[in-house]
């Protein structure tokens, strides 16, 4: 077999093996490549960082499932660390049924680290079906949509939620979004109508779609994929926040090496294709 054929017919098993090694090795032996914080991440970080201690609560919507956990769960953990450390009150909800499970997992550990009291410092609203109606409904009256929290306690009986009526009583909404319903639901039915501040953390697949909304100011900032999560973790770390885990940051070496080999394969494949075409 000649070189052009070898280059354009690399067995896929070989490609998979190289990709696996490119990811496994840096996970076991970290290289420690530098992480630069992109402007869109910095914008959302600054929006959270600038909240005063007596700020109105932040609403975090977990609009993702276990499939997008590697990208969005580190954002959720970092976000909760950030908000609790700053003593900002937090409301957590989900537009995806599995998102409630993700939120529950994070809320079982992180609030305890900051001695946060359920009902006073944070409330978990859980999942509610009918995303558009939920987002529109909160703009009218939160308690019409969520009469009770995830644990079936009436919101009127919880100190944090007793005085919350609608988006006017919320300082920032952050949707950790893996698709639809997600940040676009919050934009379409919430932000465009009720004009609240909206930030989002998205999977990398949807990251490019968020830029027009970022440019027009409809989104205050974006965490884009695992890279965005790593940038957020790094921003927090550099500002002195102590995170229990930094999964996204640890994964960045593997991410970079994986991308490097994909670029190599694209170049090699194209060279092989061009040589093969010329030889015919």
């Amino acid at each position, binding site marked *: 077999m000649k070189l052009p054929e070898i280059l354009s017919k690399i067995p*896929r*098993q070989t490609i*998979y093996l190289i*990709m*696996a090694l490119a*990811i*496994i090795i840096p*996970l*076991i032996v970290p290289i420690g490549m530098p992480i630069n914080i992109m402007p869109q991440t910095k914008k959302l970080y600054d929006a959270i960082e600038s909240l005063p201690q007596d700020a109105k609560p932040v609403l975090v919507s977990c609009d993702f499932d276990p*499939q*997008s*956990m*590697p*990208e969005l769960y580190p954002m959720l953990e970092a976000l909760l660390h950030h908000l609790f450390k700053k003593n900002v009150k937090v409301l957590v909800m989900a537009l995806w*049924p599995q998102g409630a499970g993700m939120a529950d997992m994070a809320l079982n550990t992180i609030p305890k680290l900051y001695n946060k009291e359920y009902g006073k410092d944070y409330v978990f609203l859980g*999942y*509610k*079906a*009918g995303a*558009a109606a939920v987002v*529109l409904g909160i703009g009218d009256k939160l308690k019409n949509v969520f009469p009770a929290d995830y644990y079936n306690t009436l919101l009127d009986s919880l100190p944090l939620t007793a005085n919350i009526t609608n988006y006017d009583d919320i300082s920032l909404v952050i949707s950790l979004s893996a698709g639809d319903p997600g940040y676009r639901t919050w*934009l*379409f*039915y919430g*932000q*465009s*109508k009720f004009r609240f501040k909206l930030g989002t953390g998205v*999977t*990398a*697949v*949807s*990251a*490019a*779609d968020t830029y*027009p*909304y970022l*440019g*027009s*100011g*409809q989104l205050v900032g974006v965490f*884009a*994929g*695992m*890279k965005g999560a790593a940038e957020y973790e790094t921003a927090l770390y550099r500002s002195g926040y102590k995170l229990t885990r930094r*999964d996204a940051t*640890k*994964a960045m070496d*593997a*991410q970079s090496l*994986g*991308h490097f080999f*994909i670029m190599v394969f694209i170049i090699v494949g194209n060279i092989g294709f061009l040589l093969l075409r010329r030889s015919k």
Partner: protein
Amino acid sequence: MNISTDILIWISSLLTLCIFSFIFRDNPFYRFAEHLFVGTSAGYFIALSYHNVVYPNLIVPLFKEGQIIYVIPLILGILYVTRFIPQISWVVRIPIAFLLGWGSGVVIPAALQTDVIKQIQGTMLTRVSFARWDNGLWTIIILIGVIATLIFFFFSRERKGIIKPLANLGIIFIMLGFGASFGYTVMARISLLIGRFQFLLGPWLGIIK
């Protein structure tokens, strides 16, 4: 190395390896994991839909609280089933029409506001856009990109004269957009692979923390 003794982690890890085995070729292990996932997901969502949607939004208000108005969504819901009965399958159009009417009413103004009006505002050149020179430059590039891309999709005139180079410029902007999307898609897929390897090397094999 500290291998897990948790049976659930073992099940999860072995199912991950079953799915990964598709890399070599289709095989019974892959098919077993795939069918198990489809079956479990279907069962999970049926139970979830009942407990999170049907029970709290229909059973409780209608049968436990006696709110008669909820008979309307009950009837509309039942009408969906008529599509399985050929003689009266046309009845399914009633709930679909209701849903389309509600959906259009809600979506059209929201889409206009979010994707048209706000986006046009965001493209306009204002004094604020030029507060910093780099910001001003990007705003001009975005404006040119939007106009060139819109001209590319303008099919009512033949592509000649000024329209031709602008449409070609539009193609460049579209390709840049596709490139960014593809790059991010690769990043997303690698992230998912990293997530699985982090799980296999961490909670399962205990090689990494």
